[in-house]
Structure formats: structure tokens, C-alpha cells
């Protein structure tokens, strides 16, 4: 447990430091644009009125727009998940499988978050604020925890067998 906790904090710190560094930011910016494009694509599938410019998703009819900033692009959630999986004693094959499935799960839910916020913002600013600042933040972290727990159970049971 102590070894896992120390390894988790070290990996988390290293990944977070990399995210804030110039090369990390050079990777995060296009990633955020990709998230914006994917969100606009999902919205277009629903009612066909969204467009993405850089990290902004806008409604072409109403002009309403949401900007995807740090904390909303799912990068921090992925960092926490990566740290949890890399620090846990498991084979590299298990870690890789967990990271691929986990990142997909986190990013899919993050897309649902952005699309839901896009519609909530046009319906009620106070509902948008609540969902954006509090509820979705907690749900994304709960998603990370669920993915990690399911993966950790799979790893532990595989080891026991």
C-alpha cells in the first residue's frame, strides 16, 4: 500500500509537471482542439448546428459557444488514471489494456459532459454553472475511480488464478 501510494504520487507529480511544461502544452493544445471537434461532431449528429474553432464549440444558429479549457479536456482525469495504473503492481500487458480502455471510458464521458454543458448553457446559466463547476467534475473523477477499481479487481483476480 505504502509503495503504491509513493509511486502514485511520484507518477502523478511527473505527469502533471510534464502537462504544464512547454512540450506538454504543445501536446495538450491540439488534443483540446480534437476534443472540441469531436464534441461538435456529436452535437451535429443530434441537431446539426455546431461548429468547432480551435478549443471553442459554437452553435451556428444562436451564437452560443463554450470554450474547452484546462480541466475540461479530460487531460487531468487521464493523468490520475495513468498514475493509478502505472503505480499498481500489474504486468505491462494488463497496464496497457487498462490504460487503453480507461482513457476511452474517460474521454467518452468527457464528450458527454461537453455536449450536455453545451445544451445546458443555452437552457439555464445557473444549471450550467452547477453542472460545469461541481457535478460533472465529481462525476468524471468517479468515472476514473470506477475504471480503476474494475481494472484493479481484474488484475487481482487474474493474479489469484
Amino acid at each position, binding site marked *: *500500500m505504502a509503495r503504491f*501510494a509513493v509511486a*502514485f504520487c511520484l507518477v*502523478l507529480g511527473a505527469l*502533471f509537471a510534464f502537462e*504544464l511544461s512547454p512540450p506538454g502544452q504543445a501536446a495538450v493544445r491540439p488534443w483540446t482542439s480534437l476534443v472540441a471537434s469531436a464534441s461538435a461532431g456529436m452535437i451535429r449528429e443530434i441537431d446539426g448546428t455546431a461548429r468547432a474553432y480551435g478549443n471553442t464549440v459554437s452553435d451556428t444558429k444562436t451564437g452560443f459557444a463554450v470554450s474547452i479549457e*484546462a*480541466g475540461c479536456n479530460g487531460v*487531468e*482525469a487521464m493523468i*490520475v488514471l495513468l498514475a493509478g495504473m502505472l503505480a499498481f503492481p500489474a504486468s505491462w500487458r494488463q497496464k496497457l489494456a487498462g490504460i487503453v480502455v480507461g482513457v476511452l471510458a474517460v474521454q467518452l464521458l468527457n464528450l458527454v459532459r461537453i455536449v450536455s454543458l453545451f445544451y445546458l448553457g443555452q437552457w439555464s446559466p445557473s444549471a450550467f454553472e452547477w453542472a460545469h*463547476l*461541481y*457535478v460533472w*467534475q*465529481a462525476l*468524471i*473523477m*468517479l468515472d*476514473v*475511480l*470506477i475504471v480503476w*477499481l*474494475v481494472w*484493479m*479487481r481484474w488484475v*487481482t*483476480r487474474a493474479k*489469484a488464478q
Partner: protein
Amino acid sequence: MGDPREGAVRISPVWQFVLRAFAWLPLCFAAWYFAADWYARPLGWIARFLVSLDGQGLVTSLEFGNRVIVFVTRLEIHEGVRTGVLTPEVSALVYTFGLPLFLALMLASKASWRRILLGVAVLLPFEAWSVAFDALTQIAIRSGFEVTVRSGYSAWGREVLALGYQLGALIFPTVAPIITWGFLERRFIAEKLAGSVSS
């Protein structure tokens, strides 16, 4: 007579735990929101202590109201003929949304009240860090050139504040509740969720 449990759907302990956490989450969010004015007090006091560690004595007092912590500073600001003091405000909700998540996780793992209170006490300094660095960046970075100069922070000091703010805004509010729950409930995780001892 056959076993009544025969044919029943068996849910894994992880999903039982997740369902319990989801059931507790709305109640915990409501409790957190309505208790925010009280919770803001210890949060503000610890944040003020953290701000005071810079040794500059920028904050002279705190004010509370409507789920907001107001840091009253000694820095004068001038607007035309009017003069006032800078009073950065920080919401008591923005950096504490992890608290209802932590409470829901603890209740879902059927933790004792003593442990829950211990966890809340562990989380407070992390939340206060976020509040303190928000207030400090408002003072030293986000209130205009004149205030930035009079705040006394060097360029290097402002870099440290910006890093502390990033840590307090992006990492602590989300990670601290999960780590605190994981540490306090490590036995529950190992015995019930990992399935290494029993499941």
C-alpha cells in the same frame, strides 16, 4: 424448496459500491451546498494562515457571506477620486466540490463517522490551499499592474503563485478526495473491492 437466490442477478462488489455511491451523491451535494456557509469559516481561516506564510501581511481580515470568502487586504486601489482596499473574493464551493464526492464514497463503503470526520479534516488544508492561491493570484497577478507591483511579489514569486494556483485548481480538488478515501478505506478496498481476501 429451491434456493430463493437461484437465478438472481449477482452484482460484483465493485458495482454494488458504485451504486451505493451514486445513491448517496445527490444527498451529499445537497448537504454540502446548504452547509457551505459554515464550512467556509474553517476553510477561510486555514487559507488566511497559508496566505500569511508569505510574511507580507497582505490580508488584514476575512469576511464571509453567501458562500463566499472575502479577503480584506491592506492594498489600496484608486478609481478616479475614490479610494478603497482590494478585497479578492473566493467562492467556498468552487474548490470544495470533492467533499460531497468524498462523503458519498465514505458512506458507500460504510465507513464510521469518526473516519468520515477525520477525512474531512484531512481534506480541509488541500481545499484551503486552492482558496489561498486563488486569493494570492488575484492579488499579485490578476488585479492589474499597479496592484501587482505593490503586492511585493517578484517575477519568480508570481511564477510560484501561478504553479500553486494550477495545482490547487486542477489537481487537489479532484485528486485529494479520492486519495483520502483510498487511504482511509484501504482495508475495504483490499477485502471487498479487490477480491483478494473475500468477495
